[in-house]
């Protein structure tokens, strides 16, 4: 029971954070639907028609749009499919933490040394995650239902409750898959990347089917994708229901994968992978690495994570290319919807170029904010794992640590933003979207003040409360994103929008908000100074 309670506690932060994101998204999407679709059946029919045209273009990202003239149809299309992805990502990270992260910290070894059997250890971890995930999903669905009540377009509670089954299926499937992958490699970082690749591959498999790939080609393997199985159920649709077979396959897949991970865990060495590599026969080395970047300020930070930065840059460039290629379809589709015309006008979208500026750069800011959060997590880990102590003991001043980390972050984010903008530029050329190179470059450069501001806030939180820093900086990023998305939709007062770091970025492809950029820089500078003061005050290693 103690193991179960501790395992449950290890998922507490993730469960709360994912529930907060899911609840916030559900609440806002439900309320937003009535605003953008309009109040009358005619408005909603027009909205549904246009969105279904656009939805075909977005089928790589979202399920095929059905019944968008109803609240249930809209939530199924716009909200719950995204919520499923968010829960799958959390499940994956939680699994690699439980399956490998705790082992790196020596916790698994300590538990096994007390006489707990390996199978029991892993099964208890799974049970704890299942309880945490169900509670978190329950909060998300409750908030979404609450949103429909607020919007005065309620969906049946039983239908909303039925969503728990397919969402639990995809979440538990992803957790079990993450646990299996964690048995095959030796570090949590590699496990997370490998499990992420598996999840993205299975998501892409489902996306390809939605986008019209030949079902015969993929028919045999499509049942392996938890996202395909999730899409089979749509209880919020009129006449929709939970697909019992798909849900059973999803949960059954989780059980099979769990069994596989228990089997692998029982057979491998603690600290080792299931299949051990051959021992190296290289001659011992007794001299420092020759890489000059490791000895230079800022560049040392970049060199340490070059693979990570390259991965982000390539993935974002691919997404930038894809989203930019949809610019024409989005504008042509939206211009027939009266409510969307108002939204587009408020968001500053008048042409194809603006779509790139608004839709791509808002997505890019969110992704780069996640990149910043990952860096903040790394800074907190530097403290907890003794690397900061070693750097300080080597004579690095505390202010230097702060400034150097932020500089490395800005350089890394600059590389990612520049490469992704190259994707935008190539897509614009390929799909004949007028995008001025100098404007694109300026919009890319102006991402950096956002990175600076968010990074400085993150660092001051690390200096103040390292254990809470990641949660708090994620909250700042999520609120910034949703405020940016919904302020124009609900016509919120301007000052509310100005509390969002993303709103301060504006839409520089169309109109540069120099005041917003200056505010971001000021936030960055003040945040840096407070971060330095916070780190100066702290005792290191406690």
């Amino acid at each position, binding site marked *: 029971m103690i193991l179960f309670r501790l395992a449950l506690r290890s998922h507490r932060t993730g469960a709360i954070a994912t529930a907060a994101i899911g609840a916030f998204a559900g609440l806002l999407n439900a309320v937003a639907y009535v605003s953008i679709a309009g109040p009358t059946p005619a408005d909603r029919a027009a909205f549904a028609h246009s969105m279904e045209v656009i939805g075909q273009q977005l089928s790589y990202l979202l399920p095929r749009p059905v019944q968008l003239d109803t609240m249930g149809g809209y939530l199924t299309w716009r909200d719950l499919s995204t919520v499923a992805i968010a829960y799958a990502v959390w499940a994956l990270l939680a699994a690699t933490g439980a399956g490998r992260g705790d082992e790196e910290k020596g916790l698994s070894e300590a538990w096994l040394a007390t006489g707990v059997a390996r199978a029991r250890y892993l099964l208890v971890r799974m049970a704890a995650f299942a309880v945490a995930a169900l509670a978190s999903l329950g909060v998300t669905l409750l908030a979404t239902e609450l949103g429909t009540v607020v919007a005065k377009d309620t969906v049946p509670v039983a239908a909303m409750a039925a969503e728990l089954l397919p969402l639990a299926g995809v979440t538990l499937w992803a957790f079990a898959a993450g646990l299996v992958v964690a048995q095959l490699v030796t570090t949590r970082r590699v496990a997370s990347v490998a499990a992420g690749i598996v999840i993205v591959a299975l998501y892409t498999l489902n996306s390809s089917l939605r986008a019209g790939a030949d079902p015969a080609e993929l028919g045999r393997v499509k049942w392996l994708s938890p996202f395909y199985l999730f899409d089979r159920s749509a209880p919020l649709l009129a006449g929709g229901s939970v697909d019992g077979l798909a849900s059973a396959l999803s949960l059954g897949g989780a059980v099979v994968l769990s069994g596989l991970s228990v089997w692998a865990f029982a057979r491998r060495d603690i600290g080792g992978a299931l299949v051990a590599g051959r021992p190296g026969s290289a*001659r011992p080395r*007794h001299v*420092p690495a020759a*890489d000059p970047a490791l000895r230079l300020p800022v560049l040392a930070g970049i060199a*340490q994570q070059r693979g990570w930065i390259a991965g982000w840059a390539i993935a974002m460039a691919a997404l930038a290319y894809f989203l930019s290629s949809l610019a024409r379809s989005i504008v042509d589709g939206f211009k027939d919807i009266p409510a969307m015309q108002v939204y587009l006008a408020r968001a500053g979208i008048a042409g194809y170029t603006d779509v790139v500026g608004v839709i791509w750069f808002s997505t890019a800011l969110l992704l780069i904010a996640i990149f910043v959060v990952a860096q903040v997590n790394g800074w907190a880990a530097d403290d907890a*794992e003794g690397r900061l102590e*070693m750097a300080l003991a080597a*004579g690095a001043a505390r202010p230097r640590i702060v400034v150097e980390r932020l500089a490395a972050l800005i350089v890394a984010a600059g590389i990612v933003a520049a490469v992704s903008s190259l994707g935008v530029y190539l897509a614009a050329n390929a799909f004949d979207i007028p995008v001025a190179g100098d404007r694109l470059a300026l919009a890319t450069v102006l991402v950096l003040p956002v990175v600076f501001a968010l990074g400085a806030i993150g660092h001051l939180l690390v200096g103040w409360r390292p254990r809470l820093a990641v949660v708090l900086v994620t909250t700042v990023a999520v609120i910034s994103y949703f405020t940016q998305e919904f302020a124009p939709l609900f016509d919120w007062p301007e000052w509310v929008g100005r509390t969002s770091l993303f709103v301060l970025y504006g839409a520089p492809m169309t109109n540069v908000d120099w005041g917003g950029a200056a505010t971001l820089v000021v936030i960055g500078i003040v945040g840096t100074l407070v971060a330095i003061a916070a780190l100066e*005050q702290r005792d290191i290693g406690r």
Partner: protein
Amino acid sequence: MTTAIGTGMLTKDYGAGRGIFDLDLEVAEGEVFGYLGPNGAGKTTTIKLLMGLSHATRGRATVFGLDADRDAVAVKKRVGYVPGELPQFGGWRGSEIVAYIAGLRGDIADADVEAIAKRLDLDLGRRYREYSHGNKQKLALLLAFAPRPALLILDEPTSGLDPLHQQEFYGLVRDARTGGATVFISSHVLSEVEHLCDRVGIVREGHLATVGTIDELAGIRAHHVRIEFADAPPTERLRALRGFEGLAIDGRGVSGLYRGSFDELLAAIAGARVATLESREPTLEEIFLSYYSK
């Protein structure tokens, strides 16, 4: 004699009696100083204060006349440090960690790294997570000794080292001392402190219990005494004697650690027939344990 480390009323209070309190200590330049105490006594807290990693609640610490807190960066340029808890460098190779720390310090010569790595038989080509605990400790020692610092602050430096490499470590300390370095070793391995150190400070529950040379501690503070009586021992008088710690009476034999005057001991047993009387200086381990049995 120049002072390498000086503290005055140095205090770090974590609450509930944890921390280090009113520490007054001086370590001379060129000295090898052992800082002894069990887990939780305040050794690592003292070291973090000397390294400027923690801020004192009150009092001050100086290193070569520099304030350990205010001038922390200048201090650390002159210090080689082995932390009590080894850092985690994950997938970095040993050679990359050395290059990174060398970049931060700016005073580590590749030749010194190579010499120490060979001496400790440490392969820098392997990834940190593949290192055993002993190899991680060797890397920490390499990073501390390679800059040839004026002061070495070593927190439990031989943790995880096998006896062969412990000898190499002793050699490194001797060489550093020959080169003029001061060494401050925190440890609870008494044999190593006895082997290496000129002076020893014993810390107990956050307070410095005593400081002295090995000889002073062994000769002045206490003697291990065993007396065999020909008849029944004068039990009452021995029990009344001050400074007889751990007095054990076994038939006609009496033994214990005696801290008092021998005149008083002889007076206490006057009139009794003594068969044998042995008195020897206690080992450092016995002294150490006697401080903790109080």
